[in-house]
């Protein structure tokens, strides 16, 4: 069974927001809705100055707090690692929004909670997630973490010391790895 994961090389991100727009298109989102956002941070004052862009989307945690807290069982973790919301079972209590440390869940106007689904319908057909298709610097790498020969597994093996998990100390065990330096 495939076990999907992603690597995000944040040093390559230039903050163009193309991934966000691609995702909105793919998922038919309204302008104010987004499944991924960029956390922009500035450090220092000019000329000793730097800034970073951190693309954040659902981390598809292996220990997902949003799934644990869901009172109706609408939030689920699939065997292939993808965290999904069964929208017919979602009553809109927003407890999962409170539980997610990454601030990636949104309420749709229809009254249910949604978030990045790793574009799973497309991935199953062999197409990449939308956020990867428009990125001009190739920030993201997506694939099967269970297959030791996949590009992503080899990348992770080679760069293990440079990769970290976002807010890993919360024991959410994210499936997205960030490369900082």
């Amino acid at each position, binding site marked *: 069974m495939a076990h999907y994961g992603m690597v995000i090389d944040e040093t390559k991100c230039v903050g163009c927001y193309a991934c966000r727009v691609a995702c909105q298109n793919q998922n038919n989102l309204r302008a104010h809705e987004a499944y991924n*956002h*960029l*956390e*922009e*941070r500035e450090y220092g004052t000019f000329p000793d100055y730097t800034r970073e862009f951190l693309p954040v989307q659902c981390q598809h945690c292996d220990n997902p*707090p949003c*799934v*644990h*807290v*869901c*009172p*109706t*069982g609408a939030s689920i973790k699939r065997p292939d690692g993808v965290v999904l919301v069964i929208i017919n*079972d*979602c*009553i*809109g*209590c*927003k*407890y999962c*929004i*409170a*539980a*997610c*440390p*990454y*601030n990636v869940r949104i*309420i749709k106007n229809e*009254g*249910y*909670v949604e978030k990045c689904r790793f574009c799973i319908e497309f991935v199953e057909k062999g197409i990449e997630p939308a956020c990867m298709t428009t990125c001009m610097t190739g920030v993201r790498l997506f694939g099967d973490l269970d297959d030791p020969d996949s590009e992503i597994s080899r990348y992770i093996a080679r760069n293990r010391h440079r990769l970290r998990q*976002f*807010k890993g*100390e*919360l*024991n959410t065990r994210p499936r997205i790895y960030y490369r900082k330096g």
Partner: protein
Amino acid sequence: MEGTYFVFWNWLVAVYLFVAGVSAGCFAVSAIAYFIGPKVYQDISRIGAYIAPFPLLVGIACLIADLERPLIFWKLMLTLQVASVMSWGAWLLLIFSALSFIYFYLWLPERFDLVNLFKKPADHGDDVETASESFLYKLRRRNLKKLKGWIALIGLPVALMVGIYTGVLLGALVARPFWNNPMLPMLFLVSALKTGTASICLYGCFIQGFGGMSQEKMETNKFLVHSLDFVLMVLAIITIFLFIFGLYVSPRSSVGAALLIMGGPYTFAFWGLVVVLGIFIPLCLEIYELLPHFIRQAAMREHNPWISGIITIAVLIGGYFLRHVVVYGGQAAELVSL
């Protein structure tokens, strides 16, 4: 997007947490009073039983209104998600409201007895009892005392659990530094009991009134209410101190969350309304009331409706604003940072 947050839970949730606490507190105080003096503290038990079911109904209405899809709220009751505090809470509330309504019924005066509803005037002469009548009769007249005791005994832990649950609901979230504090459920429980005594006192003093109550009876009631309150106030101060202490000795994000009430936007609401109005002013008045009793072992002071009025209203306002500050503060606190 750092520094921006959106409020997904509004004051409806704060109201819900507050009134659920009032219900739990009323039930718990009523049951405790019943156990320490079923005869002596009858009035307190009775008032507590009268109040208990109703704030909770308002609370459940708020809770459902806060859902984005209120029409399918019943999906909550189709499953029990073992890992979800909210799922446990939904069932807990169901059990608690059932118990509090039974308890309420048991304390009603005899003329409201369901037996009366089923009794047909024509039946008076003969001894034939209908099945339902004899069942209700057994339930009611013969075993009233025993039943009250049992329901109080079962209901007391359930009420305490409801009080704790309102805090655990928020405290279980590792992502939210202002909520993820072991003292929060304790704080909510103490506050729940406090608002429970306050509403009993309020109802007793201003709605029921003292018509026909002897001086002595009033004094015994007042003594229990004030002593309970006094102990709870002291506990509340300790818990608040430990709550803030807990925030300060945790990682950076928690310290940041503590700043919300230590100079941040919720400072006044917390220190002014929750601590001074909700705890200190009532505590001083309690001490004023109880002092002669403690020091000179003399009788209590004359009943002064102003004092009771201020204490109860202040406690209730403080209790609400505690929930308000916690609900809004928890969302404003920055998520645990990297």
